[in-house]
């Protein structure tokens, strides 16, 4: 199990980081919408704030690593992972669509660390979810959680090849190769 303190620390880090980013970059606007005459340059952010953000990132990553290190929950499954992510996301309120790509990246990291179909689903699925609309977050997460019960089948399809399918594929390959040469007597 993951210690509550670590989850709390992770959530606090994310919240703090979010508020900092909100302060520095107005929500819902991108660089192309800057006022006329303002330089369009990503380097026009205060250097000190960037360092601070990087610090939060470091804290968050450490916490994430620690959390994952304690993850003896692969057998309890994907549902638990999604629950944790759900807690993280629901604690972040007021963030707009502009953060979608950002969170997609963060969760992608988680996905990459978890690895395999679970990780891909956690990172790609939830991340891209959040990248769309927060309003539909709960329903979509629910559907993700519900679909988690199907995961073993997905794993079977990906990792353990169906013997019959494999046999046919092999036969086809061998026959195709043979057709290029060799003549029946």
């Amino acid at each position: 199990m993951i210690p509550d303190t670590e989850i709390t620390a992770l959530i606090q880090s994310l919240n703090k980081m979010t508020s900092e980013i909100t302060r520095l970059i107005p929500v819902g606007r991108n660089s192309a919408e800057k006022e006329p005459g303002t330089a369009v340059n990503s380097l026009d952010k205060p250097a000190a704030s960037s360092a601070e953000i990087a610090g939060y990132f470091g804290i968050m990553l450490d916490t994430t690593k620690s959390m994952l290190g304690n993850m003896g929950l692969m057998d309890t499954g994907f549902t638990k992972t999604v629950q944790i992510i759900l807690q993280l996301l629901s604690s972040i309120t007021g963030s707009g669509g502009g953060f979608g790509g950002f969170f997609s990246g963060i969760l992608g990291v988680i996905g990459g660390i978890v690895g395999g179909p679970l990780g891909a689903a956690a990172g790609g699925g939830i991340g891209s979810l959040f990248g769309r609309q927060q309003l539909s977050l709960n329903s979509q997460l629910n559907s993700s959680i519900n679909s988690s019960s199907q995961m073993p089948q997905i794993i079977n399809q990906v990792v353990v090849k169906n013997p019959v399918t494999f046999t046919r594929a092999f036969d086809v390959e061998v026959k195709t190769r043979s057709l290029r040469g060799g003549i029946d007597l």
Partner: protein
Amino acid sequence: MPVYIKKYRGGNYFNERVFVDSLVLNYIPSDGLPVFRFETEDAAGIGTYRAGDFDLNISLLQKELSQNRSSIRDFFLGEERDFYYLIIIKTGAQTFTGVSQQSQIAADYTYSQNRWHVKLTCKDILIEWAKRCEAAANSTINFANGEQLTFEEYIVRHFAGLTGSVVMIELPQKTYLERLRELYSNIQWCYALGDYRNFITGQQNISRWETFKELAKGLGFNFEMYLNPGTEDLSEPEFIFKIFFITDLVYEPPVTPEIIEITESITAPRLEWLFLKYRSFVFAEAEYADGIFFSKDASYGSDTNHGDGTTLYPTCAVTFQNKLLSYINENQVTEKNVVRDIDFKEMPLKQYNYDFNANVPIGKLYQLDEALGGGMAYSRIFNCARVHGGNIDFYDFIPIQKNAVLNLKRFIKNEIKILKIVIRLDYDHNLKLWSYLDLNGENYLLKSISELDLQQNKIEMDIIKASLP
């Protein structure tokens, strides 16, 4: 690396040939053999026989002249007639022979891209031989009722009149009878019987090549064809048609090649059991078969001795719409059931229609004609006599089945390993298909050749691990 090319007029080298001219090349371009493939059998099939083909490019810049002083272009395309060409590629002791019709030759006069050449598509000499034998009906084999021929005598008789004086039949050193006696010492004789052969109806529409292949499958032997060494200079080179049993290869000295590249794979999956059906007839309740099915460790076979014409058992019975194969013993107890395409595959032995002559028994199934269907495999023309306790059983097929099983084990499930290897051309050994190779103490059989590179002196081939008894 000479290439001998002989030009003939006619249809088939083994049937009709008039020597016209010949050409010897000591050089071919670096891309002279863009396609080169010789095979023995389909890696995924059962009881299939395959041959090969190759393309040969000859540069039009080459200055060699034919025996009749023709240039390369004129030798191949100077005149349109019923010409065909015999091409022999000789690398040391090895030879590869193909036949190309004039219609399979094309000249490319594009000067760029290193073309400006004549391209010949050549088919394996074994295909030419098969075509010759396909053109003769089985009914033309002179094999009268009352005649008894040993395996060796029968094979010679089977090809009598087809060899065109340029084919020599090479038979195994060990006679077929000796081979069977190693399995059952109480065998009195083993013959092909003229009466049995003549039971089969419609032989005027069955080719000798087809029946030969059926015989090979049913008895478990194999065959190949290659040049008789030393005859490549003759205007009519000779060929050896070699008939052999896989089990004999273990006695040949293995070739130890110099390996350049090697990759490994497993053959297409096989099922656990293989069923050989030598004779069958259909009743309403089942198809009763004279045959055997076997796995790596066990076998169940019918028993065809006793000529009472009434006892069906033990038998291999096929029921459930041809899906379920059962071995029913002499007490009519079902000992074993296997399911088609799940547990077993059937060796595709053609079941020929037959019609018994009166008073010529063929074992206990005699007089049970195929009223509702069934037939007889060509190899069932052979029969043994065995002594049991002072009595002779005259209709014994068990030793023949047993010997076939030994040679067909590569078709059952045992995960035969395939290696694709590239080896240095060995000029001392005559490396042929089915050659026996030694790789670090493990023995392999040469199944197919997929590339011959004469510039770099290497040859690519597939070999399978030899699971010989």
